[in-house]
């Protein structure tokens, strides 16, 4: 249930958006990393920017034996360490912390939910939160079904206000498990109560893709097969698996990055204009893209796993030497794949996607490479020396958009590529909010546009599950096959070179 837009006459012409109604956010897994690194800093920054209503409350739900005060102190330290606005402002924190409570319990303990329901009712009475709740599942994915079932069993899925649930990634590990999880969630909650989070969609530059495409008249006419040669989407990380080795070894790059983040970027860059900017209209168009993707086969993919090498000038170990990783692991830390979208706009245009760990630079971008000039009239420059036009949408770290085109070299007959740059930081001079701030606020306001719908998740898994199966059944790979700190396996370069193209040098 989306909150009906209140007819608050004082809202007209105000320069910030509506504030949500007072509500309580219950964070399951409150002792975990996500809570202290992302969620609470995001909530605090929202409060700091006057985006949260008075009465907003947080209940941390976890197993450890902590008191409210201890929990508050811990969160305060977490905000100090992780907030983009620096250490907490004591005055503001005092007011924000009044609304924080800790609720001890294990996820499968029925009594803990009975007492949670009582606590939430007490908060409603004391702080005016009117039965509005957000349940945030920041736990390992194994705990999701238990928590969802318990919330249902204790009548917590519905209240006299609104109730919403945010589910972190990974949402399933293949099509069957994603469908099973959807079935469990939807046996307790309605789809419009469910907010599957992909923090990539909370990034300003990702949202800007739609603005760029649909608020400018000049790009849409060239955004198709007649003008575009191919599209590359890259999400490169410099980090290895850090301390997530145990989890990552059961997952891999295809599940961890491609299925969610890269597929989302693909949808945004390839989708048709939605009829309006609303949650279902936008998501309908995204699902249509996923459904139009031609089924993938293993020959459309390249896998890699990093071996020992270096990162930022320091030697680092190989993937198989990481903590929690099997020494004979067959898990991929790099994936490149090529796909086609069989619709009128994109037929015949290849989309190259790649993502990997321990690559030389942290960079995410979408590059649209246009077709070359059809003929060369400038005799001194051979046609194949000309760089094609490239429109690059940079998502991180230097958010912005650049367009490469050819220009005459002063005083000489030569032609050189030059770029026209738009940089977010340079044009707006304000720091962008963190992805989680935007997403948490959207959820509290009942706007699901930037969250993933059930059919979207399933369509994406349906596309990739056959690859996962074929990999699992296929012969073992000669891993590791790329050095940490390099741009991935040589096979990936050959893979794209076969089409007469090359990866962008980033």
């Amino acid at each position: 249930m989306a909150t009906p837009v209140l007819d608050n006459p004082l809202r007209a012409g105000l320069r910030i958006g509506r504030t949500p109604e007072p509500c309580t956010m219950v964070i399951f897994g409150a002792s975990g990393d996500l809570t202290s690194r992302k969620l609470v800093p995001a909530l605090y920054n929202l409060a700091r920017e006057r985006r949260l209503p008075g009465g907003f409350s947080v209940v941390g739900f976890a197993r450890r034996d902590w008191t409210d005060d201890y929990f508050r102190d811990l969160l305060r330290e977490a905000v100090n360490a992780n907030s983009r606005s620096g250490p907490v402002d004591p005055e503001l924190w005092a007011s924000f912390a009044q609304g924080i409570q800790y609720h001890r319990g294990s996820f499968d303990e029925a009594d803990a939910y009975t007492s949670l329901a009582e606590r939430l009712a007490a908060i409603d009475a004391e702080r005016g939160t009117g039965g509005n709740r957000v349940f945030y599942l920041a736990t390992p994915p194994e705990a999701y079904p238990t928590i969802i079932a318990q919330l249902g069993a204790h009548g917590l899925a519905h209240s006299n206000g609104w109730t919403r649930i945010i589910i972190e990634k990974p949402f399933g590990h293949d099509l069957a498990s994603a469908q099973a999880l959807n079935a469990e969630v939807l046996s307790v909650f309605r789809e419009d109560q469910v907010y599957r989070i992909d923090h990539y969609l909370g990034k300003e530059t990702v949202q800007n893709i739609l603005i760029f495409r649909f608020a400018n008249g000049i790009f849409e006419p060239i955004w198709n097969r007649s003008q575009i040669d191919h599209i590359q989407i890259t999400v490169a990380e410099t980090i290895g698996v850090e301390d997530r080795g145990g989890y990552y070894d059961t997952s891999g790059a295809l599940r961890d990055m491609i299925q969610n983040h890269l597929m989302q970027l693909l949808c945004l860059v390839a989708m048709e204009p939605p009829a309006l900017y609303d949650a279902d209209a936008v998501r309908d168009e995204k699902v249509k893209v996923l459904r139009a993707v031609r089924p993938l086969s293993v020959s459309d993919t390249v896998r890699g796993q990093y071996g020992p090498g270096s990162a930022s000038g320091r030697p680092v170990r190989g993937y198989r030497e990481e903590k929690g990783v099997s020494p004979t692991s067959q898990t991929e830390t790099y994936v490149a794949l090529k796909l086609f979208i069989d619709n009128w706009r994109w037929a015949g245009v290849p989309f190259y996607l790649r993502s990997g760990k321990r690559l030389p630079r942290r960079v995410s971008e979408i590059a649209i490479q246009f077709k070359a000039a059809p003929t060369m009239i400038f005799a001194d420059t051979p046609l194949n020396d000309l760089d094609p036009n490239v429109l690059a949408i940079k998502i991180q770290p230097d958010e912005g958009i650049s367009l490469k085109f050819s220009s005459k070299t002063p005083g000489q007959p030569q032609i050189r590529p030059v770029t026209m740059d738009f940089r977010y930081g340079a044009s707006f001079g304000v720091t962008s909010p963190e992805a989680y701030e935007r997403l948490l606020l959207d959820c509290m306001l009942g706007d699901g546009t930037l969250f993933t719908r059930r059919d979207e998740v399933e369509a994406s898994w349906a596309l990739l599950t056959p690859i996962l199966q074929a990999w699992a059944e296929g012969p073992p790979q000669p891993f590791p096959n790329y050095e940490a700190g390099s741009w991935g396996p040589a096979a990936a370069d050959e893979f794209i070179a076969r089409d007469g193209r090359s990866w962008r040098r980033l």
Partner: protein
Amino acid sequence: MSEAAIDINAIERELRQMWQEQATHPEAGGQAVIRALTLNLIVRVPDDAWAEQVLAVAPALTAQHPNRTVLVIDRPGSATELQANVQALCTLTNAGRTQVCGEQVTISARGAPAGQLASLILPLLVPDLPVVLWAPGPQPFAQPLVQRLYRLCDRLIVDSTTFADPVRELAELAAFEQTANGAPAVSDLGWARLTPWRELTAQFFDTRPFLPHLHRIDEIVIEYVAGTHPNPVAALLFVGWLASCLKWTPLADAVGIEGETIQLYLRRPAVGVGPAAIRLVKVELRPVALAGVEGLVRLALRAVDNQQAEFVVELTGDSGYACTRATIAGANPIERTATIDHPALADLLNSELRLLSRDRTFAAALHLAGGLAQRLALP
């Protein structure tokens, strides 16, 4: 340059040369420099003290709205004097980031007729970019240069907190805005300073159960800093805003003054009775002595009939914070602390420069506040 030597072409040449030098000799550290222009900003100041204030905010303006600034120091005097100089304005950024630069032309004049100044300013404007005229200080509408230029501008920015005769000038501002009807759009930095107060007030009523009380308000008390001479413009604009949003209209004899307190009477639609029924809203604007801050100090909205409700926003002891408190029918008050920084001049300007067209909310608030001010200004 003396009067005879001011040469528009020379200024343009100097600007071009400046960018060429930047391109061939990048700043230390090899940073690339980007010249970016999003608007023309003409600033008319009466003296050097004002010019210094403008120069102090220029870097922060460049960071968000790289522009060509034409700063005109329009001093009075008998002999005509004119000088011009040119400089690039670059923002300081983190090492490795690209620097963004705008341009600034300063025209220093004494006793120059407005027509002569305008003939220098107009050719300096970059074509196809919006033109904003900022006229800080008292009596902006009495300045010949402003009168001469405003029709050519997309936006005129004044600051009601610097008015010399605040109530009278507020009435003038309102009349001007109405006549201009969006050409140019008008901005008041005094209004911009009210934004956080408006946000915090509006936020009470985003909460569904509180919304009905908004239509039952009977009393408003606004306290503002008295300072050396009281400027009730902010408080009047705030009342104007509430009244225009809530369709309240001033009574014929709407104003009264008791000591230093201004009393205003408006009528609002009554709730739950016949369609023609009205009720009275009583407003008090009180100056209070408080050091170190400007503008509003506290505001309280009260519904007293039937169920009592009170909504208060007030500055707390420490500067930079406000406490908001909603109390309904004697239940536990719902309180929170929020930041309400005293905004820097550059932030206020930036927020106004972001607007592309007439701010209709402001226009409606100003119209109402102007009407009240006119009655207050009557002898």
